[in-house]
């Protein structure tokens, strides 16, 4: 590349600073593909059920994805950097259990939220320490902590449940900011914006991409790889804590089985959003659209009383199709050129 540039400079030709215009890039992008799917799902749903286009129903539908999406934003950064955290759902269980325990001690709402976030942060720090401190593979570490965190909840709670959360605590999962805009949805929108800025507009975000593409190269170019990765685990833990506050508030109760199986749904959302599971590429807008697609598909099918297993099959097929299509297309194009 640099040779070619040097050559063209020598001959005095004008060099474009980018190969394609932003519009061209957008037209060929994953996000546009997803957006088409999202609009398609929305249109199909509107025709298929007379109940879909109702502001309150759509507002209810957002609860299907907001909490998972909050974690997915942080998970997206983590996966771009080449790591993964499969313990997120178990962090929710542990954070929720800690909050439930605190309620029995008579703790008030603001401290409850701090406890939820604090436990999330501590769990993230634990994961980050094991991965960056000992150089262990994150998939192994977090499969371990997945059992560990939820295991602690089971030991504390057994077959019991913590209930009796203060009335004002219900606001985080059941409250509305304005008309049909729930607190959770507002939080989702604000976090989407913050994470988009963090990933796409800051040095930290650039470092995340560089680490995912070439960790050794990143190290030699002066990026503190371990510190960045540790920060990403902290962030994922913190967002799991935020999700724990919202979900616990929405359910009004804590059992050790809370949020069971969510880690895979979060990873599905991230991958559907166009984040390369091997690290190095992907965008936050992609994850936002993927969250809407998953939420609208499950809600739309729910309105038609389609059995849940059919929904799972559809999400699975969508994931495979969306991932396979661009690769197949690229393969065919490459062959034609050759």
């Amino acid at each position, binding site marked *: 590349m640099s040779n070619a540039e040097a050559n063209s400079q020598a001959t005095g030709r004008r060099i474009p600073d980018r190969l394609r215009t932003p519009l061209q890039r957008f037209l060929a992008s994953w996000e546009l*593909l997803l957006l*088409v*799917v999202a609009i*398609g*799902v929305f249109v*199909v*749903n509107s*025709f*298929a*059920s*007379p*109940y*879909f286009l*109702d502001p*309150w*129903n759509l507002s*209810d*539908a957002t*609860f*299907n994805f907001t909490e998972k999406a909050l974690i997915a934003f942080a998970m997206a950064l983590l996966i771009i950097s080449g790591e993964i955290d499969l313990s997120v759902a178990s962090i929710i269980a542990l954070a929720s259990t800690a909050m439930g325990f605190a309620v029995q001690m008579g703790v008030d709402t603001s401290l409850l939220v701090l406890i939820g976030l604090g436990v999330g942060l501590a769990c993230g720090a634990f994961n980050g320490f094991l991965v960056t401190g000992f150089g262990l593979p994150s998939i192994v570490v977090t499969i371990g902590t997945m059992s560990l965190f939820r295991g602690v909840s*089971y030991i504390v709670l*057994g*077959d019991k*449940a913590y*209930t009796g959360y203060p009335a004002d605590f*219900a606001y985080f999962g*059941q409250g509305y900011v304005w008309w049909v805009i729930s607190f959770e949805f507002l939080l989702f929108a604000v976090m989407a914006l913050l994470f988009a800025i963090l990933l796409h507009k800051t040095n930290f975000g650039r470092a995340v991409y560089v680490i995912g593409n070439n960790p050794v190269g990143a190290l030699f170019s002066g990026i503190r790889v371990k510190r960045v990765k540790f920060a990403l685990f902290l962030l994922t833990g913190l967002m799991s804590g935020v999700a724990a506050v919202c*979900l616990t508030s*929405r*359910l*009004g*109760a804590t*059992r*050790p*089985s*809370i*949020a*069971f*199986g*969510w880690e895979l749904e979060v990873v599905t959302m991230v991958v559907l959003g166009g984040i390369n599971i091997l690290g190095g590429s992907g965008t936050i807008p992609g994850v936002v659209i993927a969250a809407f697609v998953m939420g609208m598909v*499950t*809600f*739309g099918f*729910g*309105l*038609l*009383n*389609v*059995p*849940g*297993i059919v*929904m*799972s099959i*559809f999400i699975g097929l969508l994931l495979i*199709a969306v991932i396979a*299509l661009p690769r197949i297309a690229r393969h065919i194009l490459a062959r034609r050129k050759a």
Partner: protein
Amino acid sequence: MKLFKSLLAATAVAAVCIAGPAQAETKRIALVVKALGIGFFEAAAKGAEEAAKELGDVEIIYTGPTDTTAEGQIEVINALIAQKVDAIAISANDQDALVPALKKAMQRGITVVSWDSGVAPDGRQLHLNPSSNPLIGNMIIKLAADHLPDGGDVAVLSASATATNQNTWIEEMNKVKDNYPGINVVATVYGDDLADKSYREAQGLMQTYPDLKAIIAPTSVGIVAAAQAVSDAEKAGQINVTGLGLPSEMAGHIDSGASKSFAIWNPIDLGYSATMLAYNLAAGNAEAKPGAEIPMGRMGALKLDDNNEGAMADPFVYDSSNIDDFKDIF
């Protein structure tokens, strides 16, 4: 892009096929179960359809999540609220976590009853117990004791550690176990209502307690897995697997001797009664309050206690004498 178009087209076609006609006058009653694909609940749905046929102007929506989680059921409840169904009859995965969602349903004028596995009083108008918990707790240990005149070690293989009903039954069983001298309950393990996990837990019990004489599994998934584990270990006849199960799934194990007898209420009757109760409340024929007696068709009437709960009937024992009559039904 072409593939995408066909994908969208396929979705549209599927959606149009699935979308049923929207009736104006019929009462739509949703039967929400813990998870789809469980024989017990499929049988309950049959009972609900029977009640709908008898009532005439009722449409049954049989639905539930793919796995037994409260979060999954809340998504289903939200979708039902959005459709403005007339009544929800639910077997709950979590008695507390569903309360906010079901409260919202009631605020929007939907009748809510729970059946089989209950919801806390705030989240429903009444709860239909298939039988009374003390009777079931007594029945499961009696089934084991009947075939152990000299006593012996027995173990319990339950569903998940958070399952409301299994925990209640085991509690009731422990209250009356002194009435069965010589019967020694050595352990309680959890198979999470998963066939493979229940199977491994049953194997573990046989290895840990060589003198084990009976396994009590008060869950339709656990009892089949335990009976299979006993058969595979060639211990049929030595270890009696009993508890609560479905005749169709247990017929083979009754024949092989791995299980001498087991009990269950009739899930068809349960789905039928839940539908009748939901209909009568939604139609304004009855009001759910302590002491009320609410008619449920051929099953008589449900008498509500102070918590607005009532029991449908006694559990029924199945053994080699009657299994053939029931195995094709559910």
